[in-house]
C-alpha cells in the first residue's frame, strides 16, 4: 500500500505539472491575440498565464532551489513545453540570406547550411523561433554565429551582411493565379572582422 501511495502521489504531481504547462501555453496564445477569441479576454489570459508561471516557479530568481528543481524535472521528463504545435495557426517561414563582400568588390550569396535533411529541419526550426519576442536579446548573437558558420568557408571575405526575412507563402487562390512566395526583410546586420554595425 505504501508503494501505491508513492506512485499515486507522483502521478498527481506529474500530471498537475503537465496541466499547468499546457494551460500556460494556451493562455499565452490567447494573451498574444493569436486566437479567434475576443480581444477582451486577453488581459485575463495574461493574468492566468502569470499565475501559472508563478505556480511553476518561473517568476522566482534563477538561484531559487524550488524553481531549479521544478525546471530540472520538467526538462528531464520532456514536459517543459505545451503541445501547441502548428497552433493556433501555422507559423510563418523564415530565411537567413548572407551576402559576402570581397576585397575586390564582388559579392556572393549564401545561406547557413547543414548536410542532412534531419539537421536542416532543426536549422529551419531555429530560424522560425528567432522572431519570437523571447529570443530578442540573443537574436543578434545567433545571427552572428550562423553567419560565422558560413564565413569560415570564405576566409577572404571582408564584410558580411545577414538579412533575416519572412517568407510569405501564397494562399491557394493566389497560387492558382500564379503568385509565388515573396520575401519580406525583417532586419539585417552587417558584420566585419574589425567591427560591426547594425542596420
Amino acid at each position, binding site marked *: *500500500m505504501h508503494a*501505491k501511495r508513492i506512485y499515486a502521489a507522483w502521478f498527481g504531481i506529474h500530471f498537475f505539472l503537465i496541466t499547468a504547462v*499546457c494551460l500556460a501555453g494556451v493562455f499565452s496564445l490567447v494573451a498574444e491575440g493569436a486566437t479567434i477569441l475576443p480581444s477582451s479576454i486577453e488581459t485575463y489570459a495574461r493574468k492566468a498565464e502569470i499565475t501559472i508561471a508563478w505556480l511553476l516557479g518561473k517568476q522566482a530568481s534563477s538561484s531559487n532551489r524550488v524553481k*531549479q528543481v521544478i525546471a530540472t524535472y520538467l*526538462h528531464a521528463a*520532456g514536459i517543459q513545453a505545451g503541445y501547441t504545435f502548428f*497552433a493556433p495557426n501555422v507559423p510563418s517561414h523564415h530565411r537567413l540570406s548572407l551576402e559576402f563582400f570581397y576585397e575586390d568588390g564582388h559579392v556572393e550569396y549564401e545561406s547557413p547550411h547543414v548536410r542532412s535533411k534531419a539537421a536542416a529541419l532543426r536549422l529551419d*526550426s531555429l530560424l522560425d523561433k528567432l522572431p519570437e519576442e523571447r529570443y530578442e536579446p540573443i537574436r543578434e548573437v*545567433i545571427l552572428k554565429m550562423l553567419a560565422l558558420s558560413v564565413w569560415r568557408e570564405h576566409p577572404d571575405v571582408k564584410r558580411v551582411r545577414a538579412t533575416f526575412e519572412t517568407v510569405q507563402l501564397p494562399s491557394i487562390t493566389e*497560387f492558382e493565379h500564379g503568385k509565388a512566395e515573396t520575401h519580406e526583410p525583417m532586419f539585417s546586420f552587417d558584420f566585419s572582422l574589425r567591427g560591426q554595425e547594425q542596420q
Partner: protein
Amino acid sequence: MSSLTSYAAVNVQLNRLRRGWQRFVGFIFPSETDTWLTVFRIGLGLQITFYALFLRSDWHYLFASSGKGLVGRELGEAISSFDSPLIPKFGWLIAVGRNLNMSEETVLTVAWVSLLSAGCLLLFGLLSRPAAIVAWFIHLCAAESGGLLAYGADNFMTTALFYLMLSPLPDRYSFDHWVAKTKPKNPQALGFWRRVLQVHLCFVYFIGGVAKFLGNGWWDGSNLWRSLIRPRFNVVSPDLLVHFRYVLPLLGISICLLEVSYPVFIWLKRTRRIWLGCILAMHAAIGLMMGLYLFALIMIVVNLTAFGVPVRPAEHRRLE
C-alpha cells in the same frame, strides 16, 4: 442528537472519499502483461537508432562549441542553465572528458556511439534498463545543448525515454529475460506505467486540438495548405494539392475534432480502433507528406504502445 447527525454526515463524506480514492487507485493500477512494454522498448530502440543515424553527418557541427559548430553549444546550454543549472548537457560530459585528456570531438563521438549502441541494445532487449538510462541521458544532453535547434519530436522522445527508463524492464521478450531468466514483473506496476503513457497522450491531443480550434486557419483549411507548402515540408507538389482545395477545410476540422475528442473516444472499446487508426494515419501522413519522419515515428510508437496493444489482464499480484 445534532452531534450524532454531524458524525453520520462526516462518515458519509469519508466513505465517498474512500470510494473515490479506491476508484482512482483501480484506474491507475490496472493489471497488465508486459506486451506493451516490448512494443515500447523496440519502438524506442528504432527511434533512437534512426535519430542517431539521421544526425550522423551533422552531429559534431550541431553540438560543437562556438567557432566550430553551427551556432555553438554554449548558447543552448546557457539558456537551459538559466532555467536550472542541474539540467544535463553535453558541457558536463565535455568537462569530464577534459579531465581525462579527451578532446571535445572525441567526447561527442563517444556520445554518438553510446546513443546508437543504446538504441540497438533497446531494440534487442540487451541490458534494457542501462540502455534506456543512457539513451535518455544522452538524448536529453543533445536536446538541451542544442535546445535552439530542437523541435517537437525531441520533447516526445525525452518523455518516452523517461517513462521507459522508469518502467519495469526487462520484458519477457527481451534478451535480458532469456539470458538472466528474470522474474515476471508486477502486473500492477506494468499497468501503472502504461496508464501514465495513456493519460499523457490524452493531454497531448486534447491541448493540441483545443489550441488548433482557436486558430481560424484550421477552420478554412489554410493551415493545412500552409503546412504542406512550407519550404522543407513541401514533399507534395502544390499543383497536386490545389486539386484537393475543397477537401482541406474538412480535413482541418477533422484533425481538430479527432484530437480534441481523443481523451473520450480512445477509452471506449467500440471507438478505440477507429480513433487509433485515424491518429496513426494522421501521423503517417505527417511523416510521408511533410518529411517529418522522426516526429511521425515517435508518435506512432507511443500511440501503438498506449492503445494499440490489446489489454490483457495479467495474473493478479498486488503492488505492496
